[in-house]
């Protein structure tokens, strides 16, 4: 084989390698970070950097001006050190690949061990661990395949920034119509500085051909600390959306304030499932993510349905109330939740079901698990407006305590302005019984297996609502997070 031949053949290995080198050396724009602090100039800078239209900048500025007059909520059952909002940097571009680990060999072995326990597929591990994108070819090809199929169905699934560029009319029509920028302190902050997030649009009559997952969205790796999601389901459409993943996500940012808005038009159905496993801090509560999330779904059309399912196991602090506004007649809202707190974690979570339309129905199943010194509060509101004839709600709220240093609290609020409404509430608190444990041990089952079996049984009603694979992962996740909680 002569040298000339090799050079002449474009498909040869040498040629390929050379090509790759050429591209590898193209210099990208260096990462940029604005100095800590927040004022109008920072917001203008962010908006300009993202090349946003004028109306969106104005919307951000308006939110910011409202935020200035607001104070952080203090009604939750949480102990939070005051947060210095001027000490936070509100924009940092994604890390360049050069600064990331180049392969799994450079990743913390402990993290890899956890992936192993959770059964995270090999090709996903690199991406989750933040290995440079170039090294993670598998997930990209998966993402691309998905994209083609969705496009055929007419489904739009892209990053929020892309949506602002490519579908400005849709974004403008729906943004802030479910969670107004003045809704609460954290929603206002998010509206002013949101970094990126997801956008989903399901056209009339379309049943989304697959479960949409943030997991597979290209460029989803670093949506940042102020994520914004908007999902619109037109008449008679259906979508199931999965947020997060069971593997621990690494993040340098301590404060997270996301906003999620769902709009379901006539007879549309949105199923939104979350598994959240942010870093909870160490055993003494040092470090850990503060997660302040505003999630709300608007059942705008008649006979529409929105169902939230969440498994919350991470974060040092969780402040989160995925809610449904049941505006359309005969619309249905559901909330299924498992919230686990271990060590020093605190969670104040629940839902709001606002019945406005006639014969609207809602169902709330909440399972709180506390271990270590964890504190777990369920906070829920069921409101039946005057015109909501024959509205119905069923709430079941169960708490399980593991060990003696933890706490469970329930704050149900019920406001009924229509006499034909039917509202039911059931609540239980149980300690993982010594008697249950002994029963399992006496049959030969080990302590760890007994705990995970009992907890899994306790959560069954919620796990049933998750897509199959997600449910299996969620179960494994609880096991990992409860390791050493007993004994």
């Amino acid at each position, binding site marked *: 084989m002569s040298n000339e031949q090799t050079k002449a053949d474009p498909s040869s290995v040498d040629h390929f390698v050379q090509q790759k080198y050429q591209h590898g050396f193209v210099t990208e724009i260096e990462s940029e970070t604005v100095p800590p602090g927040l004022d109008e100039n920072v917001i203008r800078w962010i908006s300009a950097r993202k090349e946003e239209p004028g109306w969106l900048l104005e919307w951000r500025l308006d939110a910011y001006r409202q935020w200035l007059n607001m104070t952080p909520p203090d009604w939750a059952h949480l102990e939070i050190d005051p947060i210095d909002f001027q000490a936070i940097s509100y924009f940092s571009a994604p890390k360049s690949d050069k600064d990331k680990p180049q392969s799994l060999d450079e990743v913390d072995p402990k993290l890899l061990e956890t992936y192993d326990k959770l059964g995270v597929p090999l090709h996903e591990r690199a991406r989750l661990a933040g290995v440079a994108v170039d090294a993670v070819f598998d997930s990209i090809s998966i993402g691309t395949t998905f994209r083609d199929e969705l496009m055929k169905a007419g489904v739009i699934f892209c990053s929020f920034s892309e949506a602002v560029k490519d579908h400005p009319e849709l974004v403008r029509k729906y943004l802030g119509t479910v969670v107004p920028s003045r809704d609460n302190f954290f929603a206002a902050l998010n509206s002013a500085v949101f970094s990126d997030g997801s956008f989903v649009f399901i056209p009339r009559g379309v049943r989304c051909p697959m479960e949409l997952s943030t997991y597979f969205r290209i460029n989803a790796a670093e949506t940042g600390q102020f994520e914004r999601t908007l999902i619109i389901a037109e008449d008679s459409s259906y979508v199931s959306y999965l947020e997060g993943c069971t593997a621990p996500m690494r993040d340098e940012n301590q404060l997270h304030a996301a906003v999620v808005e769902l709009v379901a038009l006539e007879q549309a159905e949105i199923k939104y499932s979350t598994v959240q496993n942010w870093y909870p801090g160490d055993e003494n509560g040092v470090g850990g993510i503060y997660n302040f999330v505003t999630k709300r779904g608007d059942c705008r059309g008649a006979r529409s349905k929105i169902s939230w399912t969440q498994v919350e196991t991470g974060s040092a602090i969780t402040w989160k109330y995925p809610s449904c506004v049941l505006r359309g007649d005969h619309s249905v809202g559901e909330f299924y939740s498992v919230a686990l707190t271990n060590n020093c974690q605190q969670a104040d979570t629940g839902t709001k079901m606002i019945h406005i339309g006639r014969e609207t129905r809602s169902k709330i199943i909440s399972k709180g698990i506390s271990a270590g010194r964890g504190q777990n509060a369920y906070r829920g509101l069921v409101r039946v407006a005057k015109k909501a004839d024959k509205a119905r709600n069923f709430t079941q709220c169960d708490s399980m305590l593991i060990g003696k240093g933890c706490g469970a609290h329930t704050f149900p609020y019920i406001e009924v302005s229509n006499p034909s409404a039917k509202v039911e509430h059931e609540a239980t608190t149980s300690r993982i*019984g*010594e*008697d*249950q444990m*002994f*029963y*399992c*041990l*006496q*049959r*030969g*089952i*080990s*302590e760890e*297996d007994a705990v995970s*079996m*009992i907890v*899994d*049984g*306790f*959560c*069954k*009603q919620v796990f049933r609502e998750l897509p199959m694979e997600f449910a299996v992962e969620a179960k494994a996740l609880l096991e990992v997070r409860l390791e050493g909680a007993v004994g």
Partner: protein
Amino acid sequence: MLEIKNLHATVGGKPILKGLNLKVSDGEVHAIMGPNGAGKSTLGNVIAGRDGYDVTAGEVLYKGADLLQLEPEERACEGIFLAFQYPVEIPGVNNTYFLRAALNAQRKYRGEPELDSMQFLKLVREKLHILHISDDLMHRAVNEGFSGGEKKRNEIFQMAVLEPSLAILDETDSGLDIDALRLVAEGVNRLRSEDRSIIVVTHYQRLLDHIVPDVVHVLADGKIVASGDADLALKLEEKGYTWLEQGGIQPLNEEARV
């Protein structure tokens, strides 16, 4: 099978067992009777290794080895089975799943291969058939919403699947009507074998009409105060436990214990 020597045990610091002696040989069925508060249930819990039941003196030998060294789950895996007086509910955990987990944990301990769901299902069918239990119980969560009789039958069913060497039935007759009692007793009788010993703890004699014991012991104030054959139970039934306190019974008869 089991030899207990001078056993003293406390519950929450309070002495309950005060020098108990008991010897159960392979294949024997022993009944332990006694008034409330005598320590009958405590004995079962101490043998099974329940937390909070502290042995302060004495020894328990099981198959010739020191039982008290073992963790509760190890004792179970070694073949000790306690049928609970009040079987515990575990909501959301399927009965079949629970039992398979238990059996496989024990098999793993003994170095035997675990059973897959098909093999396990076959085993379950066999045992259900032998005990005349409908498989309806298997589709429900562990003891959740079970009637008193169903719970007790479920215990016997678990025993049939786990095939213990030593089974302790703690007041298995309590709360059962006569038909349920007969069903449970039949189940136990089917599980009698040469290499399986059974201790039947009961307050009343009526269970012993159906499960005829080799030896009957009377437990009072933390000690075995009398032992005899099945007739002893009948005498007790007739005269009541106060008869014991009035000294109506002969002191412990070593020969009666075979």
